[in-house]
Protein backbone atom coordinates (compact mmCIF):
# COMPACT_ATOMS: atom_id res chain seq x y z
CA UNK A 1 0.00 0.00 0.00
CA UNK A 2 1.21 3.44 -0.94
CA UNK A 3 0.39 5.19 2.36
CA UNK A 4 1.24 8.77 1.29
CA UNK A 5 -1.18 8.45 -1.65
CA UNK A 6 -3.73 6.83 0.67
CA UNK A 7 -3.37 9.84 3.00
CA UNK A 8 -3.77 12.29 0.10
CA UNK A 9 -6.91 10.62 -1.23
CA UNK A 10 -8.35 10.34 2.29
CA UNK A 11 -7.64 14.05 2.85
CA UNK A 12 -9.52 15.03 -0.30
CA UNK A 13 -12.41 12.69 0.43
CA UNK A 14 -12.72 13.94 4.01
CA UNK A 15 -12.74 17.46 2.59
CA UNK A 16 -15.71 16.41 0.46
CA UNK A 17 -17.33 14.63 3.39
CA UNK A 18 -17.10 17.66 5.68
CA UNK A 19 -17.61 20.37 3.11
CA UNK A 20 -19.75 19.05 0.31
CA UNK A 21 -21.80 16.19 1.71
CA UNK A 22 -24.52 18.35 3.25
CA UNK A 23 -25.23 19.86 -0.16
CA UNK A 24 -26.31 16.40 -1.31
CA UNK A 25 -28.71 15.70 1.54
CA UNK A 26 -32.31 14.88 0.72
CA UNK A 27 -34.27 17.95 1.79
CA UNK A 28 -34.01 18.69 5.51
CA UNK A 29 -33.14 15.07 6.38
CA UNK A 30 -29.60 13.95 7.23
CA UNK A 31 -29.77 11.38 4.40
CA UNK A 32 -26.76 11.92 2.14
CA UNK A 33 -24.15 9.74 0.44
CA UNK A 34 -20.76 9.24 2.03
CA UNK A 35 -17.50 9.77 0.15
CA UNK A 36 -15.34 7.89 2.63
CA UNK A 37 -17.24 4.58 2.65
CA UNK A 38 -16.65 3.89 -1.08
CA UNK A 39 -12.95 4.53 -0.55
CA UNK A 40 -12.97 2.13 2.39
CA UNK A 41 -14.70 -0.45 0.19
CA UNK A 42 -12.24 0.14 -2.62
CA UNK A 43 -9.29 -0.47 -0.27
CA UNK A 44 -11.05 -3.45 1.29
CA UNK A 45 -11.66 -5.25 -2.00
CA UNK A 46 -8.05 -5.03 -3.05
CA UNK A 47 -5.69 -4.72 -0.07
CA UNK A 48 -4.21 -7.51 2.06
CA UNK A 49 -6.26 -8.17 5.24
CA UNK A 50 -3.81 -6.56 7.66
CA UNK A 51 -3.49 -3.45 5.54
CA UNK A 52 -7.22 -2.98 5.07
CA UNK A 53 -7.79 -3.24 8.82
CA UNK A 54 -5.32 -0.42 9.43
CA UNK A 55 -6.92 1.63 6.68
CA UNK A 56 -10.39 1.02 8.17
CA UNK A 57 -9.21 2.04 11.62
CA UNK A 58 -7.59 5.22 10.28
CA UNK A 59 -10.66 6.23 8.25
CA UNK A 60 -12.94 5.40 11.18
CA UNK A 61 -10.86 7.35 13.68
CA UNK A 62 -10.77 10.42 11.46
CA UNK A 63 -14.56 10.18 11.00
CA UNK A 64 -15.01 9.93 14.77
CA UNK A 65 -12.72 12.89 15.37
CA UNK A 66 -14.58 15.07 12.88
CA UNK A 67 -17.98 14.24 14.39
CA UNK A 68 -18.64 16.67 17.25
CA UNK A 69 -21.67 15.44 19.16
CA UNK A 70 -24.30 17.78 20.46
CA UNK A 71 -25.22 17.23 24.07
CA UNK A 72 -28.75 17.52 25.40
CA UNK A 73 -30.30 20.92 26.20
CA UNK A 74 -27.57 22.99 24.66
CA UNK A 75 -24.65 21.61 26.64
CA UNK A 76 -21.12 21.88 25.23
CA UNK A 77 -20.18 19.54 22.40
CA UNK A 78 -18.15 16.34 22.79
CA UNK A 79 -16.03 14.12 20.57
CA UNK A 80 -16.18 10.34 20.94
CA UNK A 81 -13.67 7.86 19.56
CA UNK A 82 -14.86 4.38 18.72
CA UNK A 83 -18.22 4.13 16.96
CA UNK A 84 -17.04 4.78 13.42
CA UNK A 85 -13.62 3.17 13.93
CA UNK A 86 -15.28 -0.08 14.98
CA UNK A 87 -18.02 0.30 12.41
CA UNK A 88 -15.57 0.71 9.55
CA UNK A 89 -13.44 -2.14 10.88
CA UNK A 90 -16.44 -4.46 10.84
CA UNK A 91 -17.51 -3.16 7.42
CA UNK A 92 -14.05 -3.87 6.00
CA UNK A 93 -14.22 -7.40 7.41
CA UNK A 94 -17.54 -7.89 5.63
CA UNK A 95 -16.05 -6.72 2.35
CA UNK A 96 -13.04 -8.97 2.92
CA UNK A 97 -15.39 -11.92 3.31
CA UNK A 98 -17.41 -11.08 0.22
CA UNK A 99 -14.69 -9.93 -2.13
CA UNK A 100 -13.78 -13.39 -3.38
CA UNK A 101 -17.28 -13.62 -4.86
CA UNK A 102 -17.07 -10.24 -6.59
CA UNK A 103 -15.58 -8.90 -9.80
CA UNK A 104 -13.20 -6.43 -8.23
CA UNK A 105 -12.62 -4.17 -11.21
CA UNK A 106 -16.32 -3.67 -11.86
CA UNK A 107 -17.58 -0.24 -10.67
CA UNK A 108 -20.88 -1.84 -9.69
CA UNK A 109 -19.00 -3.96 -7.14
CA UNK A 110 -17.82 -0.82 -5.31
CA UNK A 111 -21.35 0.62 -5.51
CA UNK A 112 -23.02 -2.54 -4.17
CA UNK A 113 -20.47 -3.19 -1.42
CA UNK A 114 -20.61 0.48 -0.38
CA UNK A 115 -24.27 0.03 0.52
CA UNK A 116 -23.56 -3.08 2.57
CA UNK A 117 -20.48 -1.62 4.25
CA UNK A 118 -22.23 1.65 5.13
CA UNK A 119 -25.22 -0.25 6.53
CA UNK A 120 -22.98 -2.41 8.74
CA UNK A 121 -20.96 0.59 9.92
CA UNK A 122 -24.09 2.57 10.73
CA UNK A 123 -25.61 -0.33 12.67
CA UNK A 124 -22.47 -0.40 14.83
CA UNK A 125 -22.64 3.40 15.29
CA UNK A 126 -26.33 3.28 16.27
CA UNK A 127 -25.67 0.38 18.66
CA UNK A 128 -22.87 2.24 20.42
CA UNK A 129 -24.73 5.53 20.71
CA UNK A 130 -27.89 3.75 21.88
CA UNK A 131 -25.85 1.99 24.55
CA UNK A 132 -24.45 5.38 25.55
CA UNK A 133 -27.87 6.94 25.85
CA UNK A 134 -29.14 3.95 27.86
CA UNK A 135 -26.29 4.21 30.36
CA UNK A 136 -27.14 7.87 30.88
CA UNK A 137 -24.95 9.97 28.61
CA UNK A 138 -26.57 13.36 27.92
CA UNK A 139 -26.86 12.83 24.18
CA UNK A 140 -30.01 13.57 22.22
CA UNK A 141 -30.47 10.20 20.57
CA UNK A 142 -33.53 8.60 18.95
CA UNK A 143 -32.43 5.07 17.95
CA UNK A 144 -35.23 4.19 15.51
CA UNK A 145 -35.07 7.50 13.68
CA UNK A 146 -31.26 7.36 13.56
CA UNK A 147 -31.23 3.77 12.29
CA UNK A 148 -33.74 4.48 9.54
CA UNK A 149 -32.05 7.67 8.30
CA UNK A 150 -28.63 6.03 8.42
CA UNK A 151 -29.79 2.98 6.50
CA UNK A 152 -31.30 5.33 3.94
CA UNK A 153 -27.94 7.13 3.78
CA UNK A 154 -26.30 3.75 3.24
CA UNK A 155 -28.52 3.22 0.19
CA UNK A 156 -27.39 6.54 -1.27
CA UNK A 157 -23.78 5.35 -0.98
CA UNK A 158 -24.42 3.29 -4.09
CA UNK A 159 -24.42 6.52 -6.11
CA UNK A 160 -21.25 7.93 -4.56
CA UNK A 161 -19.68 4.48 -4.79
CA UNK A 162 -20.43 4.22 -8.49
CA UNK A 163 -19.12 7.71 -9.25
CA UNK A 164 -16.00 7.37 -7.12
CA UNK A 165 -15.17 3.94 -8.49
CA UNK A 166 -14.43 5.50 -11.90
CA UNK A 167 -11.82 7.69 -10.18
CA UNK A 168 -10.48 5.17 -7.69
CA UNK A 169 -10.18 2.02 -9.82
CA UNK A 170 -7.57 3.54 -12.19
CA UNK A 171 -5.59 4.64 -9.11
CA UNK A 172 -5.27 1.07 -7.81
CA UNK A 173 -1.80 0.41 -9.28
CA UNK A 174 -0.51 3.71 -7.87
CA UNK A 175 -1.88 2.77 -4.46
CA UNK A 176 -0.15 -0.60 -4.70
CA UNK A 177 -3.47 -2.46 -4.70
CA UNK A 178 -4.39 -5.45 -6.78
CA UNK A 179 -7.79 -5.38 -8.45
CA UNK A 180 -6.80 -7.83 -11.15
CA UNK A 181 -6.32 -5.25 -13.89
CA UNK A 182 -2.93 -6.24 -15.19
CA UNK A 183 -2.10 -9.92 -14.86
CA UNK A 184 1.12 -10.71 -16.64
CA UNK A 185 1.86 -14.14 -17.92
CA UNK A 186 5.17 -15.13 -16.27
CA UNK A 187 6.02 -17.54 -19.11
CA UNK A 188 6.05 -14.71 -21.68
CA UNK A 189 8.38 -12.53 -19.64
Amino acid at each position, binding site marked *: *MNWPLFALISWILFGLELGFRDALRLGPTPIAPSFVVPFLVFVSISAPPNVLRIAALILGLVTDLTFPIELRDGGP*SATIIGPYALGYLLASQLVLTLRSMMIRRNPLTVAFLSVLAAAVAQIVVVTMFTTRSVIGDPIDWHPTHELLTRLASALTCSVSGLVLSFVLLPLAPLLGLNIGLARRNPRRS
Partner: protein
Amino acid sequence: MARSPTKFTLGRKALPIAVVLLLVLGLTPVRFIGWIGWFGTLTSTLIAPISQPFTALSRWLAPGKTATLDAPVVNALKEEIENWRTQFLRQQQENIKLQAIMEELYRLKSLNLDVPVRQVTAPVISASSDLSSGLLRVRAGEQHGVDLNTVAVASGLQLLGRVKSTSSRQCLVQPITSRSAGAIRGRVMMENPETRLLCQLEPVGNGTLRGPVFRPERSSVGDAAGPDTAALDAAAPEPAVGQTVRLDDDADRWPRHAQLLIIGKIERVDPNPDMPLRKIITVRPLLALDRVSEVVLRIAEEAAELREENSRAGKPGGEGKP
Protein backbone atom coordinates in the same frame (compact mmCIF):
# COMPACT_ATOMS: atom_id res chain seq x y z
CA MET B 1 12.68 -12.92 9.35
CA ALA B 2 13.01 -9.16 9.48
CA ARG B 3 9.96 -7.25 8.34
CA SER B 4 10.38 -4.66 5.63
CA PRO B 5 10.12 -1.12 7.07
CA THR B 6 7.73 -0.06 4.29
CA LYS B 7 5.19 -2.73 5.24
CA PHE B 8 2.91 -1.35 7.92
CA THR B 9 0.76 -4.13 9.38
CA LEU B 10 -1.16 -4.91 12.55
CA GLY B 11 0.33 -7.63 14.71
CA ARG B 12 -1.75 -10.54 16.00
CA LYS B 13 -2.23 -8.91 19.40
CA ALA B 14 -2.55 -5.34 18.18
CA LEU B 15 -5.97 -5.77 16.57
CA PRO B 16 -7.78 -7.19 19.64
CA ILE B 17 -6.11 -4.55 21.82
CA ALA B 18 -7.23 -1.80 19.43
CA VAL B 19 -10.80 -3.16 19.35
CA VAL B 20 -11.01 -3.37 23.15
CA LEU B 21 -9.54 0.13 23.51
CA LEU B 22 -12.03 1.54 21.01
CA LEU B 23 -14.92 -0.23 22.75
CA VAL B 24 -13.87 1.18 26.11
CA LEU B 25 -13.38 4.69 24.71
CA GLY B 26 -16.60 4.42 22.73
CA LEU B 27 -18.62 3.69 25.85
CA THR B 28 -16.81 5.88 28.39
CA PRO B 29 -19.11 8.64 29.67
CA VAL B 30 -18.65 11.98 27.94
CA ARG B 31 -17.44 13.78 31.07
CA PHE B 32 -14.30 11.60 31.18
CA ILE B 33 -13.25 12.00 27.54
CA GLY B 34 -13.20 15.75 27.10
CA TRP B 35 -9.52 15.51 26.13
CA ILE B 36 -10.46 13.82 22.83
CA GLY B 37 -11.87 17.15 21.66
CA TRP B 38 -8.31 18.45 21.24
CA PHE B 39 -7.57 15.70 18.72
CA GLY B 40 -10.83 16.48 16.99
CA THR B 41 -9.84 20.11 16.61
CA LEU B 42 -6.42 19.09 15.35
CA THR B 43 -7.95 16.74 12.77
CA SER B 44 -10.41 19.38 11.62
CA THR B 45 -7.58 21.91 11.33
CA LEU B 46 -5.68 19.51 9.07
CA ILE B 47 -8.75 18.92 6.90
CA ALA B 48 -9.87 22.59 6.90
CA PRO B 49 -7.71 23.69 3.91
CA ILE B 50 -9.54 21.22 1.68
CA SER B 51 -12.97 21.26 3.36
CA GLN B 52 -13.35 25.04 3.23
CA PRO B 53 -13.31 25.30 -0.60
CA PHE B 54 -15.78 22.41 -0.79
CA THR B 55 -17.98 24.11 1.83
CA ALA B 56 -17.90 27.34 -0.18
CA LEU B 57 -18.80 25.40 -3.33
CA SER B 58 -21.59 23.57 -1.52
CA ARG B 59 -23.05 26.87 -0.17
CA TRP B 60 -22.79 28.38 -3.65
CA LEU B 61 -24.63 25.45 -5.22
CA ALA B 62 -27.28 25.25 -2.51
CA PRO B 63 -27.40 28.59 -0.71
CA GLY B 64 -29.00 28.96 2.70
CA LYS B 65 -31.49 31.64 1.73
CA THR B 66 -35.06 30.42 1.77
CA ALA B 67 -36.56 33.77 0.75
CA THR B 68 -36.46 35.01 -2.83
CA LEU B 69 -33.11 36.41 -3.84
CA ASP B 70 -33.01 40.18 -4.33
CA ALA B 71 -30.36 42.43 -5.74
CA PRO B 72 -27.42 43.00 -3.37
CA VAL B 73 -28.43 46.64 -2.85
CA VAL B 74 -31.96 45.63 -1.85
CA ASN B 75 -30.58 42.99 0.50
CA ALA B 76 -28.24 45.53 2.08
CA LEU B 77 -31.10 47.99 2.57
CA LYS B 78 -33.32 45.27 4.04
CA GLU B 79 -30.56 44.35 6.43
CA GLU B 80 -30.16 47.97 7.45
CA ILE B 81 -33.91 48.31 8.03
CA GLU B 82 -33.85 45.19 10.19
CA ASN B 83 -30.88 46.59 12.09
CA TRP B 84 -32.67 49.85 12.88
CA ARG B 85 -35.91 48.04 13.70
CA THR B 86 -34.12 45.74 16.11
CA GLN B 87 -32.42 48.69 17.78
CA PHE B 88 -35.73 50.53 18.06
CA LEU B 89 -37.49 47.52 19.55
CA ARG B 90 -34.64 46.89 21.92
CA GLN B 91 -34.76 50.49 23.12
CA GLN B 92 -38.51 50.25 23.48
CA GLN B 93 -38.19 47.09 25.53
CA GLU B 94 -35.49 48.65 27.65
CA ASN B 95 -37.72 51.68 28.28
CA ILE B 96 -40.60 49.51 29.43
CA LYS B 97 -38.27 47.49 31.59
CA LEU B 98 -36.67 50.62 33.03
CA GLN B 99 -40.01 52.19 33.86
CA ALA B 100 -41.05 49.02 35.67
CA ILE B 101 -37.91 48.59 37.71
CA MET B 102 -36.86 52.23 38.10
CA GLU B 103 -37.59 52.42 41.80
CA GLU B 104 -36.01 49.09 42.54
CA LEU B 105 -32.80 50.00 40.76
CA TYR B 106 -32.74 53.62 41.79
CA ARG B 107 -29.79 53.18 44.06
CA LEU B 108 -27.63 51.66 41.36
CA LYS B 109 -25.81 54.41 39.58
CA SER B 110 -24.27 52.50 36.73
CA LEU B 111 -26.90 50.42 34.98
CA ASN B 112 -24.74 49.91 31.90
CA LEU B 113 -27.63 48.69 29.78
CA ASP B 114 -26.17 49.79 26.49
CA VAL B 115 -23.85 46.83 26.05
CA PRO B 116 -21.20 47.48 23.41
CA VAL B 117 -20.72 44.52 21.12
CA ARG B 118 -17.78 43.65 18.91
CA GLN B 119 -18.69 41.68 15.81
CA VAL B 120 -16.39 39.11 14.27
CA THR B 121 -17.30 37.83 10.82
CA ALA B 122 -15.99 34.35 10.10
CA PRO B 123 -16.52 31.72 7.40
CA VAL B 124 -18.00 28.29 8.04
CA ILE B 125 -15.22 25.85 7.23
CA SER B 126 -17.02 22.54 7.59
CA ALA B 127 -19.98 20.65 8.94
CA SER B 128 -19.72 17.35 10.76
CA SER B 129 -18.69 14.09 9.12
CA ASP B 130 -21.97 12.71 10.50
CA LEU B 131 -24.95 14.78 9.44
CA SER B 132 -26.92 13.93 12.58
CA SER B 133 -24.80 16.60 14.26
CA GLY B 134 -25.91 20.09 13.31
CA LEU B 135 -22.77 21.80 14.59
CA LEU B 136 -20.95 24.16 12.24
CA ARG B 137 -17.20 24.62 12.46
CA VAL B 138 -16.31 28.29 12.12
CA ARG B 139 -12.87 29.80 11.55
CA ALA B 140 -12.75 32.07 14.60
CA GLY B 141 -11.68 31.07 18.07
CA GLU B 142 -10.30 32.23 21.37
CA GLN B 143 -7.69 34.30 19.54
CA HIS B 144 -10.56 36.42 18.21
CA GLY B 145 -12.26 36.69 21.59
CA VAL B 146 -14.80 33.93 20.97
CA ASP B 147 -15.90 32.11 24.08
CA LEU B 148 -18.42 29.45 25.09
CA ASN B 149 -21.99 30.67 24.50
CA THR B 150 -20.90 33.56 22.29
CA VAL B 151 -23.93 34.45 20.19
CA ALA B 152 -23.74 33.88 16.43
CA VAL B 153 -25.96 35.61 13.91
CA ALA B 154 -26.38 35.23 10.18
CA SER B 155 -27.02 38.04 7.73
CA GLY B 156 -30.01 40.31 8.36
CA LEU B 157 -29.80 39.93 12.16
CA GLN B 158 -31.08 36.39 11.95
CA LEU B 159 -30.19 34.62 15.19
CA LEU B 160 -28.07 31.60 14.29
CA GLY B 161 -27.10 30.02 17.59
CA ARG B 162 -24.42 29.81 20.23
CA VAL B 163 -20.83 28.67 20.40
CA LYS B 164 -20.56 25.25 22.02
CA SER B 165 -16.84 24.62 21.86
CA THR B 166 -13.80 26.75 21.17
CA SER B 167 -10.16 26.25 20.36
CA SER B 168 -7.58 28.92 19.64
CA ARG B 169 -8.56 29.35 15.95
CA GLN B 170 -11.89 27.54 15.54
CA CYS B 171 -15.22 27.18 17.26
CA LEU B 172 -18.31 25.03 16.93
CA VAL B 173 -21.64 26.83 16.59
CA GLN B 174 -24.89 25.08 17.42
CA PRO B 175 -27.80 26.48 15.38
CA ILE B 176 -31.06 27.14 17.27
CA THR B 177 -32.79 24.72 14.88
CA SER B 178 -30.55 21.85 15.91
CA ARG B 179 -32.55 19.20 17.78
CA SER B 180 -30.27 19.30 20.80
CA ALA B 181 -30.28 23.08 21.09
CA GLY B 182 -33.12 23.10 23.60
CA ALA B 183 -36.05 25.45 24.04
CA ILE B 184 -35.91 29.14 23.26
CA ARG B 185 -38.40 31.84 24.22
CA GLY B 186 -39.52 34.27 21.57
CA ARG B 187 -41.83 37.20 21.19
CA VAL B 188 -44.35 37.38 18.38
CA MET B 189 -44.21 40.87 16.89
CA MET B 190 -47.79 42.05 16.63
CA GLU B 191 -48.93 45.07 14.64
CA ASN B 192 -49.75 46.88 17.86
CA PRO B 193 -46.40 47.21 19.70
CA GLU B 194 -48.24 47.44 23.04
CA THR B 195 -49.48 43.86 22.62
CA ARG B 196 -47.03 41.26 23.79
CA LEU B 197 -47.31 37.63 22.94
CA LEU B 198 -44.58 35.19 23.91
CA CYS B 199 -43.84 31.69 22.69
CA GLN B 200 -41.75 28.80 23.93
CA LEU B 201 -40.17 27.20 20.87
CA GLU B 202 -38.54 23.78 20.60
CA PRO B 203 -36.47 22.76 17.58
CA VAL B 204 -38.26 20.11 15.53
CA GLY B 205 -35.28 18.79 13.57
CA ASN B 206 -36.38 19.85 10.10
CA GLY B 207 -35.10 23.42 10.26
CA THR B 208 -38.13 24.82 12.10
CA LEU B 209 -39.08 25.53 15.70
CA ARG B 210 -42.47 24.78 17.19
CA GLY B 211 -44.22 25.66 20.40
CA PRO B 212 -47.18 27.23 22.18
CA VAL B 213 -47.84 30.96 22.49
CA PHE B 214 -48.86 32.55 25.78
CA ARG B 215 -49.45 35.94 27.30
CA PRO B 216 -46.53 37.54 29.18
CA GLU B 217 -48.76 37.81 32.26
CA ARG B 218 -47.94 34.15 32.77
CA SER B 219 -44.44 33.63 34.02
CA SER B 220 -44.02 30.63 31.70
CA VAL B 221 -45.88 28.32 29.40
CA GLY B 222 -46.11 25.65 32.08
CA ASP B 223 -48.19 27.71 34.52
CA ALA B 224 -51.33 26.10 35.85
CA ALA B 225 -54.34 27.26 33.92
CA GLY B 226 -56.76 28.72 36.46
CA PRO B 227 -59.90 30.70 35.66
CA ASP B 228 -57.96 34.00 35.44
CA THR B 229 -55.31 32.65 33.15
CA ALA B 230 -57.95 31.02 30.97
CA ALA B 231 -59.60 34.41 30.60
CA LEU B 232 -56.24 35.90 29.70
CA ASP B 233 -55.73 33.25 27.05
CA ALA B 234 -59.16 33.88 25.62
CA ALA B 235 -58.41 37.59 25.37
CA ALA B 236 -54.96 37.03 23.87
CA PRO B 237 -54.42 38.21 20.30
CA GLU B 238 -54.09 35.47 17.71
CA PRO B 239 -50.72 34.87 16.08
CA ALA B 240 -50.81 34.91 12.29
CA VAL B 241 -48.75 33.37 9.53
CA GLY B 242 -45.98 35.68 8.38
CA GLN B 243 -45.47 37.48 11.68
CA THR B 244 -41.89 37.83 12.86
CA VAL B 245 -40.74 36.13 16.04
CA ARG B 246 -37.81 37.65 17.91
CA LEU B 247 -35.73 36.44 20.84
CA ASP B 248 -37.12 37.44 24.23
CA ASP B 249 -35.48 35.04 26.63
CA ASP B 250 -33.99 35.22 30.10
CA ALA B 251 -30.82 37.25 30.35
CA ASP B 252 -29.25 34.22 32.10
CA ARG B 253 -29.75 32.07 29.01
CA TRP B 254 -29.20 34.62 26.26
CA PRO B 255 -27.21 37.84 26.79
CA ARG B 256 -28.91 41.21 26.57
CA HIS B 257 -27.23 42.13 23.31
CA ALA B 258 -28.88 39.10 21.69
CA GLN B 259 -32.41 40.03 22.74
CA LEU B 260 -34.84 40.79 19.92
CA LEU B 261 -32.71 39.26 17.24
CA ILE B 262 -34.91 37.53 14.67
CA ILE B 263 -35.75 33.86 15.27
CA GLY B 264 -37.88 33.60 12.14
CA LYS B 265 -41.31 34.02 10.69
CA ILE B 266 -44.46 32.11 11.61
CA GLU B 267 -45.05 29.43 9.00
CA ARG B 268 -48.05 27.66 10.54
CA VAL B 269 -50.55 28.24 13.32
CA ASP B 270 -52.22 25.14 14.75
CA PRO B 271 -54.68 24.67 17.59
CA ASN B 272 -53.22 23.20 20.75
CA PRO B 273 -55.00 19.86 21.37
CA ASP B 274 -54.31 20.03 25.11
CA MET B 275 -55.26 23.68 25.63
CA PRO B 276 -57.88 24.85 23.10
CA LEU B 277 -57.44 28.54 23.97
CA ARG B 278 -53.81 28.52 23.02
CA LYS B 279 -52.20 28.13 19.64
CA ILE B 280 -49.09 26.26 18.58
CA ILE B 281 -46.92 28.05 16.06
CA THR B 282 -44.27 26.75 13.71
CA VAL B 283 -41.48 29.23 13.07
CA ARG B 284 -39.02 29.00 10.21
CA PRO B 285 -35.83 31.10 10.25
CA LEU B 286 -35.27 33.51 7.37
CA LEU B 287 -32.29 31.39 6.28
CA ALA B 288 -31.56 27.68 6.33
CA LEU B 289 -29.29 27.93 9.37
CA ASP B 290 -27.30 24.78 8.60
CA ARG B 291 -26.46 26.14 5.13
CA VAL B 292 -24.93 29.51 6.01
CA SER B 293 -21.49 30.18 4.61
CA GLU B 294 -20.55 32.98 6.98
CA VAL B 295 -21.49 33.87 10.54
CA VAL B 296 -21.16 37.00 12.65
CA LEU B 297 -20.05 36.33 16.22
CA ARG B 298 -21.23 38.98 18.68
CA ILE B 299 -18.79 39.38 21.53
CA ALA B 300 -19.69 41.69 24.41
CA GLU B 301 -16.82 44.11 25.00
CA GLU B 302 -17.18 43.80 28.78
CA ALA B 303 -16.69 40.02 28.48
CA ALA B 304 -13.63 40.54 26.28
CA GLU B 305 -12.18 42.95 28.81
CA LEU B 306 -12.94 40.55 31.66
CA ARG B 307 -11.29 37.75 29.73
CA GLU B 308 -8.20 39.83 29.07
CA GLU B 309 -7.98 40.74 32.74
CA ASN B 310 -8.40 37.10 33.74
CA SER B 311 -5.82 35.93 31.24
CA ARG B 312 -3.39 38.49 32.63
CA ALA B 313 -4.16 37.19 36.11
CA GLY B 314 -3.96 33.58 34.89
CA LYS B 315 -7.64 32.78 35.65
CA PRO B 316 -10.26 31.31 33.37
CA GLY B 317 -13.22 33.49 32.51
CA GLY B 318 -15.31 35.03 29.80
CA GLU B 319 -18.75 35.70 28.55
CA GLY B 320 -20.38 32.32 28.53
CA LYS B 321 -21.33 29.72 31.04
CA PRO B 322 -20.34 26.25 29.94
